[in-house]
């Protein structure tokens, strides 16, 4: 039997794993819905604009349907986002205690954006019948601006965790002075924020397009489906090449500022020049197994020359190395691989559209679009795994370890189990409800009306 005083330590280690998993799971769930909160408004408004400007009934119908779907995704996004705010205190109380004063301002700013977005979203979603066309359109515009602003503030907070600055600590490690502007505009903000914004537009664009691609593959080739495919797909295909440029820049910044993360995600054991770029494979103590190695490419990508020195894990103290190198490496490769595939899809569409003002005729194009939504979501998850697992063992890079931040409360594994069950149900119902709405639209049925429980009839006026 272990000595008793070891037990609290064991409980703490166990809490750390449970808390990290719960945070990853709930963030991964929320971020998909957050993308819809950020990028769906613009997609809807473009359809709305086309509808009003050209008197296009199909485009207006798409905007109306998407806004009804957004009512559902925004509600689930709002409650799962609230859960994250609670988790800051429930899972990471020591982190908030020590650094809330420094990086909390980002969330205060996000709060305003979210507030304004929630207000105008309500006006837009519920204003279809009784507001005039253009007044209704303009009531939606603040959603686009606030969606972008909110994403900026939240991602700036995460950037700060990766490249913290703008605060002064006393000898006891307490924050005694802050420079909020330096917190918000830390070095990582410049690439993390555009990377995530573009990711949101890609996720939404490819996901919405994929729904209509599936419909077209089932033989629904009407104009509504064509427009429903083309509007979001165009947005996503414009975002994709910019994203590849931003992502490439971000990787170089990580190599410069977070060499441990970079070495882990690229499986670099020894510091040196002429580093090999590994595609796929498993990271082991003696090199990458089963991967495809391209000599010199890693050094070239970091510094545009094979002579660029890249820091390896051997120069990182063992207790400051990220865990799970293979996970990081494969996640990074998945993100880059999917991003490249989506780029090819965008080029394919652009080429055919330029030649004959139409989408490619082959069903393979629709099949590719049909899986692009899931692909974009997986790529985004993979990117967040690289960012967050790659920062470990730090919660605030260089200042606070995740193990120091975690709660001492009991029952974290139990809570995590409940959260998985709850979110599984939530996810399933969200999909079922959205599919039900889409089926009713197809069948041309009226919206559910009347009292919530009652037989369908209009009871109020």
């Amino acid at each position, binding site marked *: 039997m272990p000595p008793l005083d070891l037990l609290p330590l064991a409980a703490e280690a166990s809490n750390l794993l449970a808390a990290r998993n719960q945070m990853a799971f709930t963030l991964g769930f929320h971020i998909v819905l957050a993308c819809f909160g950020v990028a769906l408004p613009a997609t809807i408004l473009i359809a709305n604009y086309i509808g009003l400007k050209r008197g296009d009934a199909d485009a207006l119908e798409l905007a109306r349907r998407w806004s009804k779907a957004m009512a559902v995704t925004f509600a*689930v996004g709002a409650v799962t986002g*609230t859960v994250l*705010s609670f988790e800051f205190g429930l899972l990471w109380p020591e982190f908030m205690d020590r650094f*809330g*004063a420094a990086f909390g301002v980002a969330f205060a700013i996000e*709060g305003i954006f979210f507030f304004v977005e929630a*207000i105008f979203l309500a006006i837009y979603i519920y204003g279809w019948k009784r507001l005039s066309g253009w007044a209704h359109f303009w009531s939606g515009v603040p959603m686009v601006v606030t969606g972008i602003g909110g994403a900026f503030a939240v991602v700036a907070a995460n950037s700060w965790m990766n490249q913290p600055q703008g605060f002064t600590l006393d000898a006891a490690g307490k924050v005694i002075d802050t420079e909020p502007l330096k917190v918000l505009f830390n070095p990582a903000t410049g690439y993390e924020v555009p990377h995530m914004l573009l990711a949101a537009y890609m996720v939404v664009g490819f996901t919405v397009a994929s729904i209509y691609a599936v419909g077209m593959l089932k033989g629904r080739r009407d104009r509504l489906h064509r427009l429903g495919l083309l509007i979001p797909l165009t947005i996503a295909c414009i975002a994709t090449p910019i994203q590849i440029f931003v992502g490439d820049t971000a990787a170089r910044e990580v190599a410069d500022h977070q060499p441990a993360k970079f070495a882990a995600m690229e499986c670099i054991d020894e510091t040196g020049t002429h580093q090999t770029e590994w595609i796929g494979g498993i990271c082991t103590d003696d090199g990458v197994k089963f991967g495809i190695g391209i000599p010199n490419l890693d050094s070239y990508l970091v510094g545009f020359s094979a002579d660029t020195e890249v820091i390896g894990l051997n120069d990182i103290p063992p207790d400051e190395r990220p865990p799970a190198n293979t996970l990081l490496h494969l996640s990074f490769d998945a993100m880059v691989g999917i991003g490249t595939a989506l780029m090819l899809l965008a080029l394919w569409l652009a080429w055919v559209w330029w030649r004959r003002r139409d989408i490619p005729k082959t069903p393979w194009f629709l099949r590719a679009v049909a899986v692009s939504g899931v692909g974009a979501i997986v790529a985004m998850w993979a990117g967040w795994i690289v960012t967050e697992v790659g920062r470990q063992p730090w919660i605030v890079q260089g200042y606070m370890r995740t193990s120091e931040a975690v*709660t001492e*409360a009991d029952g974290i594994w139990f809570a995590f189990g409940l959260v998985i069950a709850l979110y599984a149900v939530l996810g399933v119902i969200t999909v079922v409800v959205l599919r039900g709405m889409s089926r009713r639209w197809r069948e041309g049925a009226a919206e559910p009306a009347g009292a919530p429980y009652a037989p369908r009839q209009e009871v*109020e006026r």
Partner: protein
Amino acid sequence: MNLADAVAIILWVGITFYALFGGADFGGGFWDLVAGGAERGERPRALIQRSLTPVWEANHVWLIFVLVVLWTGFPSAFKAVFTTLYVPIALAALGIVLRGSGFAFRKSVEALEARRALGATFAISSLLTPFFMGTVAGAVAAGNVPGGGNGDPFSSWLQPLPLLTGALFVATSAYLAAVFLVGDARRAGHPDLERYFLRRALGAGAVAGLAAALGLVALHGEARYVFDRLLAEGLPLVILSAVCGLALLGLLLRPVRRGPMRPLAAGAVVAVVWGWGVAQWPYLLPTSLTVDAAAAPDPTLTVVLVVFAIAAVLVLPSLGLLYALSQRDLLESEH
């Protein structure tokens, strides 16, 4: 007044708005829960849904506002509360997830059975959240949250005062919602529903009054610091709350119900929230953590104030627009 005091006041403004608007939304869920079977409860539920639909998400954001101001402006208080009261806080969060999603889903499904299940989820969770939020407030007032955090996770809130405060929150929410719904029913031209919610407003008001009276007794036993100040510095607010409550009672009992019903209902609640704040001043966590001791450095507090000023310029007019459109029936309740 220093910066920390100003931010503490902003925190209380956020709590006030959440108590008023979030409270009324939760109360709507309460009346949905007790509206009876599908046939009998059909019309009250329709009215509740119509009133809640366009505004509940915006109202919910006040909670986020309170959390953000707390962890940015007073990080150690945030930690102390969350490491002690994590059980009721987690249950309140569960209620928030179920309520929001249940409400949003219910409007978007067809089948009666599914609507019933989602509606029940929405309604029951509307009860859970204010109750557990109330236990948190009661535990803080009772001084059961040590300033350093990690207080007892159960005995801190499983006490008469926190539990009574939970009941008070539920009753107050129901009361606010019923008064608001009386006005909505009148505007929609349903005199029978007006009477329906009037009776419920009176009942909930009586229960809330009783819970408040019992709460005072418990306060005397468990939170002497807060009790003493409530009946000294806080006395004008206690009287204001009682006057508002009684004046509203008078209005409700008159045959022609005209007059400032909503302002009076809101006034009664606002006075209680500020009475609580005054009573535990200068402590955030009586009597172990003061506002000053918990406060973040000045530049952070300044940003919180600036952000609040921007919010006042940007959010409040937008919110006013939303309520105005909603009250003038320019927004649909169905989507």
